[in-house]
């Protein structure tokens, strides 16, 4: 029982990070209908921003840690907007495939640029927050896990508020519903798309920091696997659907943690894909997505 609860907590804190990244995929898919492959590398950049800023911003205290977290989010938001303006904006109304390949190009650029800039070897991520182990009976919870959960919940609530209670959020929803109609009622589609990229990339940046706090070894290729799993999470929940992405992230995190505890642990990385394939075969619209009928 204790074992189960312990795994549950580990799984939730991993799943919360996947959820943050998955939201970025799902939001971009919602407004532009393509898979932003470079998203996982924005996540990696987030970790490195944290790595370089941590000594300067006084990491190790609660305030310093939060400062690092928010500056990484801001840096990633900026990066996301730049990527969108330079690489994706010239491709509006082109075929999905062209945009997809460009996104892969951006992803390769960030990975290889990262290897040149940061060096290819793994680095040890510094401590951001004061660390303690909390004991509840036989249960051990690290303060980092609690911070991950708290920050994720806070960001999810903020995101919900932005999307549902602000003008720009309403515009985002309108755009993903029908882009042409949105521009007809006076929404500046380009501005909304930029904002979406900023929002999604900021969440990826936060994900990068939180991930590096729990797995404190970072390298320029670290984004690929968590990125793919988060994408699976987005599809699992129904791509384009925000609560779905959060739910999918938590589920993937839980399943992966439970698999790691069994003898099949070396197959851990393949599990997410197996889930993806099953979900696409039996419920292609995802858990919370709406089925669409194809019309000629």
């Amino acid at each position: 029982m204790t074992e189960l609860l312990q795994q549950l907590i580990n799984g939730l804190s991993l799943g919360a990070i996947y959820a943050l990244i998955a939201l970025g995929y799902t939001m971009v898919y919602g407004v532009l209908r393509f898979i932003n492959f470079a998203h996982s590398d924005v996540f990696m950049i987030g970790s490195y921003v944290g790595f370089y800023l941590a000594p300067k911003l006084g990491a190790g205290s609660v305030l310093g840690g939060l400062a690092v977290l928010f500056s990484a989010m801001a840096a990633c938001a900026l990066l996301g907007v730049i990527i969108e303006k330079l690489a994706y904006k010239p491709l509006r109304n082109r075929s999905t495939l062209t945009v997809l390949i460009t996104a892969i190009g951006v992803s390769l650029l960030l990975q290889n640029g990262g290897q040149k800039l940061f060096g290819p070897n793994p680095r040890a991520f510094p401590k951001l927050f004061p660390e303690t182990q909390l004991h509840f009976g036989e249960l051990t919870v690290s303060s980092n896990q609690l911070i991950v959960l708290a920050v994720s919940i806070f960001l999810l609530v903020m995101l919900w508020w932005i999307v549902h209670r602000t003008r720009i959020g309403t515009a985002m929803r309108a755009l993903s519903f029908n882009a042409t109609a949105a521009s007809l009622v006076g929404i500046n589609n380009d501005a909304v798309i930029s904002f979406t990229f900023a929002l999604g990339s900021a969440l990826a940046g936060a994900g990068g920091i939180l991930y590096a706090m729990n797995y404190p070894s970072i390298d320029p290729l670290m984004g690929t696997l968590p990125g793919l799993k988060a994408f699976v999470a987005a599809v699992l929940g129904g791509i384009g659907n925000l609560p779905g992405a959060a739910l999918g992230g938590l589920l993937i995190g839980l399943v992966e943690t439970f698999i790691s505890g069994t003898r099949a642990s070396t197959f851990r990385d393949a599990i997410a894909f197996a889930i993806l394939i099953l979900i696409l075969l039996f419920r292609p619209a995802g858990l919370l997505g709406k089925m669409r009928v194809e019309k000629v």
Partner: protein
Amino acid sequence: MPPKSQLWLLATLVVAGIVSAFSGRIDPYFLDVAMGVGIAVTLAASLNLINGFTGQFSLGHAGFMAVGAYSSAVITTNFGPKLLPLVGGQVWILFPIALVVGGLLAALAGLAVGAPSLRLKGDYLAIVTLGFGEIIKVIFQNVDAVGGARGLVGIPNYTNLFWTFGVAAVTVYVVWALLNSTYGRGFLAVADDEVAAEAMGLNPTRYKITAFVVGSFFAGVAGGLYAHLKGYLNPGGFDFNKSIEIVVMVILGGMGRHVGVILAAILLTVVQEPLRQLGDWRMILYSLLLIVLMITRPQGLFVWPLWKKKNA
């Protein structure tokens, strides 16, 4: 007189055989690059059938290549000492058998992947094939009999110029002949408009699966050639990036064009060599090039308005 396309195939095979006979006099570095070109053409032409002509989007070609590479390598490396005497010690009999078995197993993997997932479209299919490619990689990393994550070593170097160019020529010919047959027109119909093709009485799913199986077969054969060229296999070498490399050849060649894709495969393989001197900058330049080309020339490198598109 046989059709022109068959004469082309025959001529290529003869030239490959003659050049191969003199390969001892060719600079080994040049030879190595040339064989790499042959394998790249095979991979690109086979993926072109799936991504170009049938209009699907597979991102898992490296996975099928891995299946072919490992199975043919296991045949020649582990069972080779027993099998060689059976064919009179003749490598030129054993090697093609190993290649074909590797290709067949890859085709089987293609069927297993294609049958359930080809109901999906566009980026979903891309992601599922990507997932399958990664799963195949993880499986090879976990099977100790083929070296696991350490890789498979000691594969005999059977690949030579004749095999690489012969296989490339056969692949291009088969794809070409298939598309120009009565049956094969269906691939183009499916790519153009699936619903219309279905209304005409074609079965799009069957066409897609056929394309997938044939494409995977040749990817598997190319994998076998690769294994016996390098003499060493590492599951990490068949990752997502390898698949992307092949996809880029098909896209820059102009999806669904025979000559353009062959040229792109040759160009992209050869251009890697001078870029090697740039070290770390090589991949940065490569990715920048990819982005710029996608923005400026999404229709492919070798496509000009003067060139009429023949098959689509």
